[in-house]
């Protein structure tokens, strides 16, 4: 270790007027050197009694300057204006210790020479040598990659990631996708094993599910970014990835012309009411988006009724009890219609006919309600639990009070309106989100009512999680990106989505279901979800937010700085490195907003027209 500093740049010495300790020390800088916040340093001390020199690594957390020999504040005039007062301009830096080698927790010695940690020393300062599988997740100020120990994301030693930051600067989702691009570029990394360690097979066939909740921001992952510069390109090159947008894959399209090594993306959106099924978005300029919905059959089989009642206030015991009862009765009673469109009728289980253990599809009898939409499902349920003239069916309601039944119907009624959940449940050929189609599955829910958004998120999370529960295999990994975590897993209240998110947070690690949760304020997210995230990332924080205990993993100086972070700069906390690291990430080669799309001249000609058109429709 002692030979390392000889190649390194000397920047100063540890000051002698304050004590060093095992957390911090201060440096007086040499006249020709500088240190910026986030720079890494190393100090070698010969500790009495230790056979080998002690190497102390640290990161600069503050940079300071003053005149030495100044007693009064106005002295500066006599120093700088008339110049009669001799004083020495000094520059100092405060360093937080990140590591000691050997691990003998002893303060570095006052007066020791401090070197800038570059190359091997820099990796040692950031524990890169300790990382099982390192993956670049950002750039240091000097442009070199900052690594993450993948073992702490993919479930080997830890899992999940939590991203916090104020909204509007679009950094949370952008970083999440930057991260996903690094993650799915693993194949590429493996090919360049000489540059980075092999990341391993766990990332092979990784599937990412993401919900687009704001505008159409995530629907341009396959489109070039007009603002992408050469500087951004070199950033990506330093990270070992050739910057390209994701490759679009549509349902039924040939995948033979896909380029290898570039992750794919598929877009999904609920169909617009009264339009052909393939026109799923109001904007005509976004093509290649597949529609998705659930048939009544799928709705009943998957028990999706729970996700209709996702409001925290719906969690009253009686209502939940009734809901579970109705759910199981639906599963018992529902028989497919013979037309094969996914419609069902509710018929008493004793009257079901079976061939080889399967229910035989039927034609509806007179008086039976054909369930082909949420509206008709509501009517079907109502027929059993709140019929007009006869008593409710005891199998369906048990001894539940009428008030609860009415509350249930009221909620179901509200939800089944066409502009809420209505359009998500319809009959037709199977149109579900195929998460195996592409690496990244973007489900657009931004135009849906909040109730419907929750429903889609809940239904797809359940599907993802149950699939992994069934296979019991951690790989291939299934990553879920969920923005507005505070909405889905709030700190207070109960909801089926929250329960599932907590379940994923706790068990997903071993099942290979990994959550990338994003939120404006971590303080409003359920602690169970937050605390299970091994990787923590924050962008700019609201100043009140940054003081909260959820950010205790950051240093006080980092917290102060988090209020001022610019887009493209994040703070990363990971178990492998005991200190938060500030990193930058290059602009993405894909557009993160519609305005960033690079358009060809012909398209440009009509672009004004398009946008005015889309505004009208919206």
């Amino acid at each position, binding site marked *: 270790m002692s030979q390392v500093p000889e190649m390194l740049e000397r920047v100063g010495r540890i000051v002698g007027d304050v004590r060093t300790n095992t957390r911090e020390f201060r440096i007086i800088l040499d006249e020709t050197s500088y240190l910026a916040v986030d720079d890494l340093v190393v100090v070698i001390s010969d500790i009495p009694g230790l056979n080998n020199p002690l190497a102390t690594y640290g990161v600069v957390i503050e940079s300071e300057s003053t005149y030495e020999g100044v007693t009064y504040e106005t002295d500066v005039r006599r120093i700088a204006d008339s110049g*009669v007062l001799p004083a020495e301009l000094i520059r100092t830096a405060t360093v937080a210790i990140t590591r000691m080698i050997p691990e003998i927790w002893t303060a570095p010695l006052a007066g020791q020479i401090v070197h800038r940690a570059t190359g091997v020393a820099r990796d040692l300062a950031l524990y890169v040598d300790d990382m099982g599988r390192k993956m670049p997740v950002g750039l240091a100020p000097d442009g070199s990659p900052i690594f993450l120990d993948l073992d702490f994301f993919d479930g080997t030693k830890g899992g999940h990631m939590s991203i916090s930051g104020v909204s509007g600067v679009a950094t949370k989702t952008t970083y999440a996708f930057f991260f996903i691009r690094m993650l799915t570029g693993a194949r590429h990394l493996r090919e360049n094993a000489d540059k980075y360690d092999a990341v391993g097979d766990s990332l092979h066939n990784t599937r990412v599910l993401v919900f687009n909740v704001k505008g159409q921001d995530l629907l341009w992952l396959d489109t070039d970014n007009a603002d992408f510069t050469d500087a951004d390109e070199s950033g990506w090159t330093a990270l070992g990835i050739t910057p390209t947008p994701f490759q679009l894959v549509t349902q039924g399209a040939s995948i033979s012309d896909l380029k290898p090594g570039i992750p794919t993306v598929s877009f999904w959106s609920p169909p617009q009411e009264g339009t052909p099924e393939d026109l799923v978005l109001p904007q005509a300029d976004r093509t290649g988006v597949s529609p998705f919905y659930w048939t009544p059959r799928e709705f009943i089989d998957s028990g999706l009724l729970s996700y209709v009642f996702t409001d925290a206030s719906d969690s009253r015991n009686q209502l939940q009890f009734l809901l579970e009862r109705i759910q199981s009765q639906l599963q018992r009673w529902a028989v497919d219609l013979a037309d094969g469109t996914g419609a069902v009728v509710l018929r008493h289980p004793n009257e079901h006919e079976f061939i080889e253990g399967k229910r035989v599809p039927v034609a509806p009898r007179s008086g039976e309600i054909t369930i082909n939409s949420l509206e008709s499902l509501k009517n079907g349920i109502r027929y059993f639990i709140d019929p007009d003239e006869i008593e409710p069916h005891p199998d369906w309601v048990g001894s539940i009070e009428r008030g609860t039944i009415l509350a249930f119907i009221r909620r179901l009624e509200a939800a089944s309106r066409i502009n809420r959940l209505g359009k998500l449940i319809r009959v037709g050929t199977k149109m579900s989100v195929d998460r195996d189609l592409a690496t990244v599955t973007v489900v657009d829910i931004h135009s849906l009512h909040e109730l419907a958004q929750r429903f889609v998120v809940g239904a797809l999370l359940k599907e993802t999680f149950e699939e992994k529960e069934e296979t019991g295999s951690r790989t291939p990994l299934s990553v879920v990106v969920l923005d507005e975590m505070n909405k889905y897993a709030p700190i207070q209240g109960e909801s089926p989505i929250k329960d599932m998110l907590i379940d994923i947070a706790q068990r997903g690690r071993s099942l290979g279901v990994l959550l990338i949760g994003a939120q404006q304020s971590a303080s409003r997210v359920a602690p169970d979800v937050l605390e299970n995230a091994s990787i923590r990332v924050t962008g700019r924080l609201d100043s009140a937010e940054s003081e909260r205990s959820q950010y205790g993993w950051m240093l006080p100086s980092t917290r102060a700085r988090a209020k001022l972070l610019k887009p493209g700069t994040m703070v990363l906390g990971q178990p492998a490195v005991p200190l938060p690291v500030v990193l930058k990430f290059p602009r993405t080669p894909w557009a993160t907003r519609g305005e960033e799309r690079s358009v060809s001249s012909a398209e440009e000609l009509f672009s004004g027209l398009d946008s005015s058109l889309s505004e009208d429709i919206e």
Partner: protein
Amino acid sequence: MTSDLSDLSLSISSWDPAYGSAVDFREFQESDQQSLDDSVEMNSKNWEPIHGNIIDAPPEILFVDGIQRVEARLEIYPPEFEVPQLALWAATGAGAVRWNRKERKSQFFDLTHRRVVVLPKGIEISHIERLKRADIDFEICHARGTEFSDLQNEVHAQMAELEVQIVRTTTNSSGNMVIADGRIRSKHPPRTLGYVKSHERRYLSGRPAETVPNLDIEQRTPIFLIDGQYPRYSWYIRVGYVPKGNKWQGIARLEVSAELELEHAIELADISAVVIPIAAPPLYMDPRAPQNLVPIAALERELRRGLGDPELLNRKLKVALHEA
């Protein structure tokens, strides 16, 4: 614990080392009889303030000063002596501030420190052999007598010697103006200005004495000659005002060797009247403001800092003499 007798012959006096050393002896050192000629530049009957100017002022002005500190009083008591003899362990320092008026920048330079053990007359160096155990470098010199004041005078002389050395080296870089704190002595190079901030001695009377309090900033009195063992030209300037104070406050006196041509002295006097007030501190900054010039105060502070912690030194000496 067995010690040979010579070990017992040296100890540290439990007196506070600073006791009795606070006297500023600069002024009474040259208390020779002096005669005064107050009409060398202007007839004393016509004395009135003269405006200074800095047309010929050099770009660099140097301030030189020295400090002294008695750090321990040693008692030497060899068997052949009837009573213990006193010696002083002292530290001196001297240095300069180079004020570049054009660049508006001041810098310390030639900061020199020296530790010295002053032995009374007749005491052998061998008696203080044990001091070397403290592992601090020091020089040894002898006082002219055996009294405490003799020892103190020798410490002062050592400091003055150091200061003169600094002045000599700085004056070599010609063209600059050198201002030494306090009176000048024969050992100073002739161009050196002495800056005297206190007025313990009355030089002028009659009209010349009345002229002094009426000086304004950038004005000076006419030059007068102080004749004696070492003849010097002298003049008063105003460095600042003390609001509601008496009019002699804020006045400083300068002197320069009379070996210099009078013309040359006049030139220096003119420059000093304008330049020195710039370096005067505001009242709140220094108890000795405005006379105690900023660069000199800073220099003293820096020199004192360089002497190290007196408590620490005392501890080292005690360990060396009494515990080792």
